[in-house]
């Protein structure tokens, strides 16, 4: 039974969740108040999609450092489209998502066509996108958004926040993609071993671009969700997304090297991060310590995961 547990990829994160939630429920009763749980669910909803945006490129073994910039761009675009251009929110959202896809696609195309170090490309485009957004918007925010849209941020479906439902629907779609479609198989093959994939007839370049397109689209989705929740579109949207976008997948067992994706684990990871942040607030600890804790948690998670993998390998489990 111990072997089964060690072999289970979600062991670490599930254990951590159980322990921390247990401690919090015990120590701070406010933890499981309806109000608090709703706040938690909003956070998880958005963080989950952000993490999926990173997972999309992690699947092919790449990183997307520009997802914060793409999110900000898409969010502002949606805001502008609704407030200034007067479009209805479904159309504005669709356009913003398309915009995110294109921005991601540009990143993917530059990476595969030029062969420039993907890290540099991602870093450079992050700055370029962010700069373009600032230049075009001049730093303005959009807070006169249609009330029908803002209401979505607070709506519930049978008591469950709508945004969480949307998030879970996206998650399920991603699961289906990676587990049940040919494209998903090809993406994971590209990430597991790009050389083998290429030599086996997989169009790896196309897969990498597709992964980036998906990542950009998901970033946009997360941004629109956040705009609905906050009721306004600001340039600072998503500025704290980068680390959680790596931390949640890693906590949940997704490999940074590619080829392996765990959506459920990613959401558990997002939940863990949200609970920890929540715990800090409930305990009255300054929010500033969250970042420190986040970094330490990520390092511990990485080290533990390494240890678990080599333990499994060494003992041929």
């Amino acid at each position: 039974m111990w072997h089964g547990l060690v072999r289970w990829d979600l062991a670490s994160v599930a254990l951590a969740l159980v322990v921390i939630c247990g401690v919090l429920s015990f120590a701070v009763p406010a933890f499981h108040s309806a109000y608090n749980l709703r706040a938690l669910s909003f956070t998880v909803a958005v963080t989950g999609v952000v993490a999926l945006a990173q997972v999309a490129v992690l699947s092919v073994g790449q990183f997307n450092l520009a997802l914060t910039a793409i999110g900000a761009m898409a969010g502002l675009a949606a805001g502008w489209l609704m407030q200034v251009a007067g479009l209805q929110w479904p159309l504005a959202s669709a356009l913003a998502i398309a915009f995110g896809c294109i921005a991601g696609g540009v990143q993917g195309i530059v990476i595969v066509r030029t062969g420039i170090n993907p890290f540099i490309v991602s870093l450079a485009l992050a700055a370029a996108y962010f700069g373009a957004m600032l230049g075009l918007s001049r730093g303005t925010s959009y807070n006169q958004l249609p009330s029908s849209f803002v209401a979505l941020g607070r709506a519930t479906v049978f008591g469950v926040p709508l945004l969480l439902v949307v998030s879970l629907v996206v998650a399920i779609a991603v699961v289906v993609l990676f587990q049940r479609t040919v494209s998903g198989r090809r993406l994971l093959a590209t990430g597991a071993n790009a050389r083998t994939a290429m030599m086996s007839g997989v169009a790896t370049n196309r897969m990498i671009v597709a992964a980036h397109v998906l990542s950009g689209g998901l970033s946009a989705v997360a941004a629109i969700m956040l705009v609905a929740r906050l009721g306004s579109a600001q340039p600072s949207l998503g500025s704290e997304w980068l680390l959680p976008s790596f931390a949640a997948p890693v906590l949940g067992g997704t490999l940074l090297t590619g080829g392996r994706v765990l959506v459920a684990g990613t959401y558990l990871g997002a939940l863990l991060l949200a609970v920890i942040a929540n715990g800090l607030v409930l305990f009255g600890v300054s929010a500033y310590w969250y970042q420190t804790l986040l970094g330490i948690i990520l390092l511990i998670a990485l080290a533990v995961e390494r240890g678990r993998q080599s333990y499994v390998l060494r003992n041929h489990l």
Partner: protein
Amino acid sequence: MAELPVESAGGPGGEHPPVLELRDISKGFPGVQALDHVSLTLRRGEVQALLGENGAGKSTLIKIITGVYRADEGSYRIDGKLVNIANPRQAFAQGIGVVHQERSLVPTFTAGENVLLERIVGQAFHVVDREQIHRDARPFMEMVGLTISPAHRVESLSPAQKQLIEIARALSLNTRILLLDEPTASISLNEADALLQTIRRLKAQGVSILYVTHKLEEVYQICDSVTVLRDGKNAAPTAPLGDLTRDQLIARMIGRSHSNAPLPGRAEAERKPVLEVAGLQSAHSPIPASFTLAKGEILGWYGLVGSGRTELARALIGADKPTGGTMRLGGRDVRVGSVAAALRRWRIGYVSENRQEEGLFLAHPIARNVAVTVWNRLRHAIGLLDVGGERKMADDYRASLGIRMTSPRQAVGNLSGGNQQKVSVAKWLAARPEILIIDEPTVGIDVGTKYELHQLIWNLAEEGMSIILISSDMPEIVRLADRILVFRSNRIVADLQNDRDYDAMSRAIMERIVGAKSKEEVSANG
């Protein structure tokens, strides 16, 4: 100024003990005995050739001499005294230097700095005086015939010059026993001549040299003695070169066939050409290659490692873009733009020689490895995957190829080499190609699986698949191939019909591999 003691140069010296003597060296790895009671004697100031086919044990022997491996049994003597070499540092300390085929230089440093690299980077806290380093490096560079300034950056030197830098570096570390591994493999004829001159010069200064090569013309130009290895044993003890005729040398290099019974005959069938290649070139295979492949034929490509066969295969399947020449499939001119195109449009498959890095997804289970070539066939409507079909396909191949695993979910990386290779082959069988290129299928595989794969290849050809079998295993190729192309230094040097007479075929092939007779040889042997 560096000086090496000038020993009595020339042939086998009488009074001094041999500078290097290995006796009854044995080395085994799980599943294979790499060396079995091998002996070698190198005298001071001598240049000795170490000959043998791939897999004969040369590189294992080199690794034992240089301290990378330790022998399981046998004695290792330097200057007559027993030594215990536990790691490369100790080998260096004993005066052993080696120049491999892959370069071990720091490209952004200067020539002089690379020659004296150990001195520069051996310690952290000392001041490096570049001018002094360049001055001190010069004598070593002159010793190997390099007249360029030590201040030139290594990255701007030619491959031959880089090699000389490495030799100079070995000399700077007081190397008395120099091992050279196929040094003329990637340099031009002119530069090879210059290298051989350098070796003569070093010999005159008392350096003893062990020269690994397959080019007999070079052996006859500079070597005094020769040791031949075959299948991990001495095919001939160390002997002066004059004691063996060229034919005798070649005969000793060739292994005996283990292949037991020949396979049952195949129908001669229609041998119309299914692939015609004329002048095909690519960036990695720049010498134009031409050959034909008939339907149902097994065409063997024999050559030593590095002779360019894999590069040509990659050009055929579109992994490297062809830069010239033509390919005709079934009479039609084609351009193979990518591996995906080769697979789907032209039905050409390639089982990679490097199954771990290029043939398999080690972390994935068998189903995902086998189906990668045919996912588009396993598709329901709207792009959903037929997971059940994928699993069934894997089970079918598991059964038909006899792939042993503890569970279908097991990561392929945990399988034995033979079973891994079967998975790699199954992947291409699933794609049902018309032409299948198989690159070194039985390297590092147990004997049982080896014969299963042979039978499989035979059956595939019988069913009409046209096969290109790339192999450096002489018995394997003589057993399976209908025709054999011999590769040497990136070009096809012979196209031989296989009469399945092992002695005759292996001799004919080896003749082509070792090269034409040089004038020294002709005059030496008449």
